[in-house]
């Protein structure tokens, strides 16, 4: 019995990449695009295969694999780089891949990145080794409005930056850290009776109203009075990547990134981290506030191991509305 099926399943593609949690390490993985199998000359991937490290020199490179493209016949070849399977087993969750070069980041609000890429909506990437904009080099950002030539960083309002970035690299990481709730990188704090705090990723994936957060704001980012304070979240926004907290920052000094030229000696970054919650049940109004069993407790964030399937017509996760069947196998040999 050389192979055992670990698990399998099916999903309807959105066109974006898909993560599939695996209850055990896998040695072989395959997908079938059920929708495109019945189409006439669709010129899309209908079958994908991945081979684990037990296959030695036949193992699949990260982001790769073997694909079968249906045209008038079945054409088998390797996936183009980073368009196939990526198997992730360990934390921290950098999804192994070659660094991807960017050509520009605008100093606009929000900032827009120009880059030939295969990323999906809401992917998280680390920006590093930038030319200019060193004040954000080493920070992760969530992507939106993704196209093959670039994307928008809702979490970065860079209009106050002196210059645009003219180069750099990205590396995709898991959307969630190993443990949730996770600390988030702050890119903006308003001066208001209830401070509005913007982060580099969507905070609604990690925090809900009622949770408390603890601030770490180095002096180089201006609003030093916020450093060490703990506030309660009173509102969250997915559209703006913001949380509103019950801290009056009206008279605090303004939050501002240091100049790019101040790196690497300017202290970075400003962050906030989970500090519990003050939940209340009002027996008079019978209203429970501030508790969400899905978001508040400390728990595992990104399950490992998992298989990342790149999205799109030439990738295993398929194009929007495609039905994908998948199977994971364990090879019982050594």
């Amino acid at each position: 019995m050389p192979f055992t099926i670990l698990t399998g399943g099916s999903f309807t593609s959105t066109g974006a990449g898909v993560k599939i949690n695996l209850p055990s390490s896998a040695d072989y993985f395959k997908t079938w695009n059920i929708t495109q199998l019945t189409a006439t000359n669709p010129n899309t991937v209908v079958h994908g295969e991945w081979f684990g490290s037990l296959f030695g020199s036949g193992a699949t490179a990260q982001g790769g694999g073997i694909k079968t493209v249906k045209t008038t016949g079945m054409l088998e070849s390797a996936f183009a780089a980073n368009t196939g399977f990526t198997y992730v087993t360990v934390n921290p969750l950098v999804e192994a891949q070659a660094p991807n070069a960017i050509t520009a980041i605008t100093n606009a609000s929000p900032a827009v990145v120009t880059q030939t890429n295969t990323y999906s909506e809401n992917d998280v990437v680390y920006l590093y080794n930038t030319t200019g904009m060193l004040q954000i080099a080493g920070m992760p950002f969530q992507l939106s409005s993704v196209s093959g030539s670039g994307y928008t960083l809702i979490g970065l309002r860079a209009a106050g930056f002196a210059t645009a970035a003219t180069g750099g690299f990205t590396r995709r990481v898991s959307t969630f850290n190993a443990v949730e709730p996770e600390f988030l990188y702050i890119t903006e704090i308003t001066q208001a009776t209830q401070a509005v705090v913007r982060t580099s990723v969507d905070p609604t994936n990690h925090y809900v109203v009622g949770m408390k957060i603890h601030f770490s704001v180095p002096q180089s980012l201006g609003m030093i009075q916020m450093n060490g304070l703990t506030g309660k979240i009173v509102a969250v926004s997915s559209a703006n990547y913001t949380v509103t907290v019950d801290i009056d920052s009206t008279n605090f000094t303004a939050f501002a990134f240091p100049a790019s030229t101040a790196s690497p000696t300017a202290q970075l970054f400003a962050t906030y981290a989970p500090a519990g919650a003050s939940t209340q049940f009002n027996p008079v109004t019978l209203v429970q506030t501030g508790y969400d069993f899905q978001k508040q407790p400390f728990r595992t964030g990104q399950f490992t191991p998992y298989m990342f399937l790149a999205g799109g017509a030439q990738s295993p996760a398929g194009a929007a509305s495609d039905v994908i069947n998948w199977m994971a196998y364990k090879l019982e040999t050594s």
Partner: protein
Amino acid sequence: MSFQSGITNIQNMAPELPVQASEDLLSTPMFNLIHSFGVDLHHAESYVGKTTRMSRFERLSTDGGQLDGSGIDPAPEVPVRTDIDATMEIYAKTIVTNEQVVLWENSKTLTKFTALLGQWLREKEDLLMRDLFSSSVSYINATGGLNGDQPSSISLNDVNNIERILLNNDARSMLTSLEATLKFATGGVRDAFIALANTNLTADLQRVQGVLLKSAYPTQEGIRPEEYCSISRFRFFVSSKGAKTPGVSMLGNTVYTIPMYGLEAAAKIEQNNYTAVIGYRPPWVVSAVAQNSQLYAKFAIARAITNQNWISGLNVTTFTPS
């Protein structure tokens, strides 16, 4: 050279058995288990849900309070309770062994495999606590090092900055002081907070101004082998599995995370009767022809940062890129 014929030697009479097992097994490599140092241990009861709540009452305000003689009472204050919740999770590992392995292996296979599972249990638990520290705590980028990266390599200023943060937040030190003695090249060690670092940082730790390597402590009694040095108010423990994220510094180098904390900063919650379960399923249960048996290990754990005021830490890179 002449040859004498008729001698029985190992060329014409090879040993019947080509190998023999040495009397002792060699050591199975195990990394330093440092990530549960100093965390509080809590226990969860059975039959009351999988989420454990730890609660703390926050300090009352010390503003005002003086009575002016008018007879008007001071305004009452509603105490604030902070709840820290953690969800219990179960992890397991199994080894399925064919009877032929048991039959022909030199010595007690199942006993060895049981020991392996026990080691896995402690190692997995350590990594889970590491992940808690690396995911849910705010870290400050080191900037005092001279490698030109952001974060930089570690320096005394960076370490002192974290001490200042912890002291400003009223954190309590974890380890008691080691009183100086009249021994050459040793020095006293102050009461200290704990710092956990990757072994790749040991070369840089030795370069930090004022570092006191473990060998220079006034006593070695009770000092754990995982401890490496003392810098300022921190005692550093190292592990090859200390947290790191490859390729994400300003210059694209590996960033190492050093959690630095005092008392009651984090907690590990064990499930009563499920802390460490190691079991055996005999061949007649596992296999239709009674040829495979199974060993397994399971444990339940929940983890939480219980007070962000009392934990901080550094992101650093190595002086020589790694």
